[in-house]
């Protein structure tokens, strides 16, 4: 009975925290004045869940382990409150003879394709520039293994802009906004990011 109580307290608390986070950060039907209240409430819930403790704290570690093994570490706000746009990553392969080819991150199945799309969403949404660059770099390395003769790779990361229904009816189609570009060469040099926000 105690396990049952704790288990559901965690499920509801994490779902509540994620809901409050969405109210704080996303455009919702609530007025913007509501955001400060939801931010405070989210902070309280996070603190109660031990999320404000140091990452190495044993209580936080034990709780995180249980959440992961039970599959309840996230809330359930799929495609909510609104459906976000998606992201696209294109690799520009520069060959020693001056030839340029274009490549996308490739997998063999539709199921893995959905996972790659999720990966691009995570790259696009991460607030950490270093992590974004590292992830793009590892993807560039996978392309390099398939094209070992390539001299340099330019990775261009963009956001997909989806037309609204009425825009589509008036002829507008999907477009892309340039977000970041990284240049990689075979030498062990840090990438040179070109960023447009």
């Amino acid at each position, binding site marked *: *009975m105690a396990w*049952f109580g704790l*288990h*559901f307290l965690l*499920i509801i608390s994490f*779902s*509540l925290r*994620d*809901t409050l986070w*969405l109210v704080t950060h*996303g*455009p*919702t*039907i*609530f007025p913007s004045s509501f955001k400060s209240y939801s931010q405070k409430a989210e902070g309280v819930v996070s603190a109660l869940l031990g999320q404000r403790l140091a990452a190495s704290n044993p209580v936080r*570690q034990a709780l*995180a*382990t249980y959440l*992961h*093994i*039970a*599959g*309840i*570490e*996230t*809330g*359930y*706000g799929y*495609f*909510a*409150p*609104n*459906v976000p*746009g*998606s992201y696209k990553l294109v690799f520009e392969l520069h060959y020693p003879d001056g030839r340029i080819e274009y490549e996308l*991150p490739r*997998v*063999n*199945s*539709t*199921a*893995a394709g*959905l*996972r*790659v*799309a*999720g*990966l691009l969403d*995570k790259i696009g949404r991460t607030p950490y520039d270093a992590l974004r660059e*590292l*992830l793009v770099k*590892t993807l560039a390395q*996978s392309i390099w293994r398939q094209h070992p003769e390539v001299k340099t790779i330019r990775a261009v990361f963009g956001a*997909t802009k*989806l*037309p609204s*229904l009425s825009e*589509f*009816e008036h002829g507008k189609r*999907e477009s892309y906004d340039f977000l970041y570009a990284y240049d990689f060469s075979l030498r062990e040099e840090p990438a040179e990011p070109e960023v447009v926000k």
Partner: protein
Amino acid sequence: MQALKKRLSEFLFPTESDAWLSILRIGLGFQITLYALSLRNDWNYLFAGAGGGLVNRDLAEALLSIESRFAPRLGWLVAVGAQVGLREETVLSILWICLLVAGCGLMAGIFSRTCAILAWFLHLCAAKSGGFTSYGVDNFMTIGLFYLMLSPLPDRYSLDWQFLKSQPEDSPFLGFWRRVLQLHLCATYFFSGLTKCLGSGWWDGSNIWRSLIRPPFNVIDPEMLVRWNYLFPVAGVLICLLEIGYPFFIWSDKTRKIWLICICVMHVSIGLTMGMYLFALIMIILNVAAFGPGLLFCKTELTRFQRTQPAIID
């Protein structure tokens, strides 16, 4: 207080048939098998470590370690394999085979508990080590497998039951674990519906349109979708109402059947129109296991517990 405790106990530990457990076991076995088969050509590429795969597995595991050092991961098993001289590729291939075998074992009901634990552990390792590439389907598979491995297996439709005659005596827990699954689904749909209701796009149908044209879910040609545009606001509002109303209408005998059917139709539609077959399947399996027996199928009046009791003759 005593009366409340008694009512709570009766609610949490109802006398229950194991039909729901059979559906959950066979369904999750099928899901795991499909999951493994769908990733067969990309398994090593998705989960390889430094210098071998799409994304460096070591990076995902390092980030996981910040949150939890004890969450299972493929790196542990690769390290064990390295101790006995196995290469990373070989270990990953063996793990894929083990996952497939566990899925088939669950479907057949052979060594049900062992297969449930193995499937939960291996899938969890893959989901955590592939953290950057995992999504909702992995969460729900973990949830389902977690409850399955803790439930009183084997069920009467398993081969374990047929051949080994190993009949457990813990029938009260059959009802308990079904209740846990039911309540978890109620929480899931309520919060999913609540967060959708917060966005204006679900009320005017624009989010339905965006979901259907958003790569990689753009399975249907937008030119064809435009012809059905009047349905989008209706579908958006229906999804919000179905999800947020789930914990209120799924318990009543009068509304359970229609709610369950509507939720399953919603997931079938998501699977067909957005190409999210595995996600649709896991949600249907969990829903049908939780609320289907006795409703969509013939009601099994006798519980396993009752069948194993000796008859009392006055």
